[in-house]
């Protein structure tokens, strides 16, 4: 597969790891805040690798811009100085770290046991052969993003080698699923909630009913994956309740924050 993509991945992965370790190790909260911002950048980069461009931007905007600024503001406001290290070695700190590490090991074990490395290896060879074939047929190959995440079987009729698909392939695959939804082959919530009881009709109030046509409209321009349009459509269609609730949440937090932080007059 490609050389650059993996490189960037490892680069930013280690970047994220190191900065997050730095965040919890540094003594001075100011430095922590700054390393955290760097960490958010690494995350943003990873989002891009995962072709979630909109979120990468939002990440930087929201986290980097808003939240970290807030943190820095607070740190500056309370002019926290370098805090002396904890006086004595507390036993429960050790337990905590061990617990954390065990959490990680467990998660890793869970993930690795779910992923069968041979399977991945075969996928890899199969993809490698497809790539060679493609190269021999000299088809027009868009920017190859070799992030060959072994996904489900290739979509039914798509010629594209899903293993080595690039942005274009992702687009087509996504459009493919949208069409499938539209044609009613699979519903959006298909095999998402395994124990979801499909036959129990779940009726949204009419006002919230998604507008049948508009829902699956494939906007003009190809290449929707990762952009804001599908997100915004979903926000107002399927996720309209959470959307409104988030609004309320934000309102509440603003009012709360303001009350708490205001200096008592009396």
């Amino acid at each position, binding site marked *: *597969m490609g050389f650059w*993509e993996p490189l960037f991945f490892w680069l930013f*992965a280690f970047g*994220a*790891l190191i900065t*997050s370790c730095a*965040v*919890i190790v540094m003594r001075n*909260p100011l430095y922590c*805040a700054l390393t955290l911002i760097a*960490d958010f950048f690494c995350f943003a980069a*990873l*989002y891009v690798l*995962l072709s*979630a461009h*909109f*979120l990468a931007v*939002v*990440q930087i905007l*929201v*986290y980097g811009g808003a*939240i970290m600024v807030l*943190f820095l503001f*607070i740190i500056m*406001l*309370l002019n*926290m100085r370098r805090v002396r290290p*904890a006086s004595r070695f507390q036993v429960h*700190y050790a337990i*905590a770290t061990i617990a*954390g*590490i065990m959490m*990680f090991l467990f*998660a*890793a074990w869970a993930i690795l046991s779910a*992923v069968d490395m041979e399977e*991945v*290896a075969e996928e*890899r060879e199969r993809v490698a052969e497809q790539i060679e074939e493609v190269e021999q047929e000299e088809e027009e190959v868009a920017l190859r993003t070799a*992030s*060959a*995440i*072994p996904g489900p079987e290739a979509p039914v009729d798509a010629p594209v080698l899903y293993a080595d698909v690039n942005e274009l392939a*992702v687009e087509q*695959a*996504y459009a493919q699923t949208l069409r499938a939804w539209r044609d009613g082959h699979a519903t959006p919530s298909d095999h*998402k909630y395994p124990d979801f009881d499909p036959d129990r009709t779940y009726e949204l109030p009419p006002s919230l009913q998604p507008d049948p046509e508009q829902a699956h409209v494939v906007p003009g321009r190809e290449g929707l*994956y*990762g952009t804001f349009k*599908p*997100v915004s459509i*979903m926000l107002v269609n399927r*996720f309209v309740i959470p959307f409104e609730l*988030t609004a309320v949440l*934000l309102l509440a*937090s603003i009012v*709360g*924050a303001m009350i*708490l*932080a205001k200096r008592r007059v009396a």
Partner: protein
Amino acid sequence: MAWVSTLISYWEPTLAHYLLLSAAVFSIGLIGVMVRRNALIVFMSIELMLNSVNLSFISFARYRFEMDGHVFAFFIMAVAAAEAAVALAIVIHVFRHKRGVNVDEMQELKY
């Protein structure tokens, strides 16, 4: 040179890589929450944990070629923002009373 090929096979990032990364960052955040005595650092660790969760959402979205993950990640960010705001307000409030924001001094609710 067998190990090279195996190495190469691990070289390209797969879903597992992303998940492992997110788990690692999550654990680091968790340790940070449990170990650091300064409230702000604790909040930052929480942000870390939230971010790692976002990463796993996005990687699964990518894995399934759907955008639900993104929407959810978006919501998480909204919540994170709200949470950060409230948290920092509390920190200021506490700071005003106790001149310090060490977590283990705030034990009034013990009994």
